[in-house]
């Protein structure tokens, strides 16, 4: 069993293309003057189809987090950190916080985006506690690590 890999729809393609370049891009709804996430064909407030892709800061705060001690499948190696990140531009996203000690985590802690390869084609946004050096990859690699 391998980690789930997104298979982007045409609507989602700009998000994943940006991730592959190391950029976090979100849809922006001009009538609502707000960003939204996840990618949609229509704004989830005014339902306008006029959504522009714009690069965002990649900064955010931890809205909540958990240290997963029992992995969901053999494709993941526990422990790993799942978090809900409130992006500086507004939307919330689920992600992993990588290279962090569980004791260093707290709701409200600031994080910044990084990108990790999930497959040859797909990179996903992950987050690091701000100020934590960034040299290693994601907290686990399905292909290189032992089974739980």
């Amino acid at each position, binding site marked *: *069993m391998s*980690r*789930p*890999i*997104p*298979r*982007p729809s045409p609507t*989602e393609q700009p998000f994943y293309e940006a991730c592959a370049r190391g950029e976090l891009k979100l849809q922006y709804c001009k009538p609502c003057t707000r960003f939204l*996430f*996840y990618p949609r064909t229509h704004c989830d407030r005014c339902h306008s189809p006029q959504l522009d892709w714009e690069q965002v800061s990649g900064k955010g705060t931890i*809205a*909540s*987090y*958990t*240290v*997963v*001690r*029992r*992995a*969901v*499948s*053999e*494709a*993941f190696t526990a422990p*790993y950190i*799942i*978090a*809900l990140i409130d992006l500086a531009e507004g939307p*919330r*996203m*689920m*992600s*992993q916080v990588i290279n962090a000690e*569980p004791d260093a985590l*707290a*709701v*409200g802690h600031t994080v910044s985006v990084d990108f990790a390869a*999930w497959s040859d084609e797909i990179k*996903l946004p992950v987050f690091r506690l701000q100020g934590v050096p960034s040299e290693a990859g994601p907290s*686990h690699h399905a292909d290189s690590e032992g089974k739980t």
Partner: protein
Amino acid sequence: MAKTGLHDDCALIGMAESDVGIVPDKTPRELCVQVTLDAVRDAGLTLEDVDGLITCNAFAEPIMYHAEAVAEYLGWQPKHCVTVNTGGGTTFMAIKMAAAAIAAGMAHTIVIAMADSLRSHMTREQAMVVQSSSGHPHYEQPYGPTVPAYYALLARAHMDRFGTTEEHFAYAAVSCRAWASQHPKAQKRDPISVEDVMGSRPIADPLKVLDCSLVSDGGAAVVITRGDRVSGSKQKPIYLLGYGEGHAYEHISQASDLTTSAAVMSGQAAYADSGLTPNDMDLLQLYDCFTPALLIQVEDLGFCAKGEGGDWLASGISQPGGHKPLNTHGGMLSYCHPGNPGAMFGLTEAMLQLRGQAGARQLSGINTALCHAQGGIMSSHATLILGNEDPS
């Protein structure tokens, strides 16, 4: 009193449970067939007296047209036949749909039957993967969240906002186990302490294994009939006094509020529908898939102020001898949790208590019960208020 009219004129007249816990000798379909027949028999009827069937699918034995396949297995051609799927909320949304079908003249008597075998007919990993597949396939699942992890996110947010502690959550598990220890069928019956919960194996911080519901086999069914068919029924009829539902989101990463759920919406609707209040509820049957879910429901359904669920649970009010008995069968934390059918056992227990048939654990002076179920990750909520006296 703002009546919806859907359930003014119907009552629950039959119920059945299969063996629960570890039941390897039956498939989910066989369990579903068994509880269908047993519930109809409990009502003093035969299948010829029943013209509707509502089921939900089973993870361990998915069937494309589930209700139809169950009817076929029984050689039965009901007039109304439908499969419902709203996760853990399926149970009571199916009751609402049955009441609506009866009100609309689509059927007069409907059996609602559900069963699954997550314990014996799936591997542990299959059960975890299939349940975590409720996460968004592109924006949640790739990160490896488990279902306990989703609820851990809610727990952590509640701790941060209200000062709730891990011990507060533990009291929910202790309370359910105290009730289960009185139930001969419960999957887990050994009493546990807060220290036992705190010391149990970490699953997804702050949740330990004893904060998590069981993985079980089992099924249950109920029979609902139109008002003019209630009189003379074999069992004491149980009336639907109120119903409400609320749908806030599907995926937890889309929740606008991590600490208050759409149980507020469903509870308020059910109270308005019944003309009753939280104080009027003699018995609570809440959805305890994880201890924080139970704590949040206690608050959101109005049994204490927001943020005080931990103190409410720690007070012992929900435990045997307390005046708000909660999950008197032991809940999904200790009685059984076969997946989508999980809340059916809260309903069947409420029916037994309201009928006065709960045996050694029978409560005295029980006239009303609130049953709550939710699907997704605290996403879709359904609240059912039952009574044992004819409201009309």
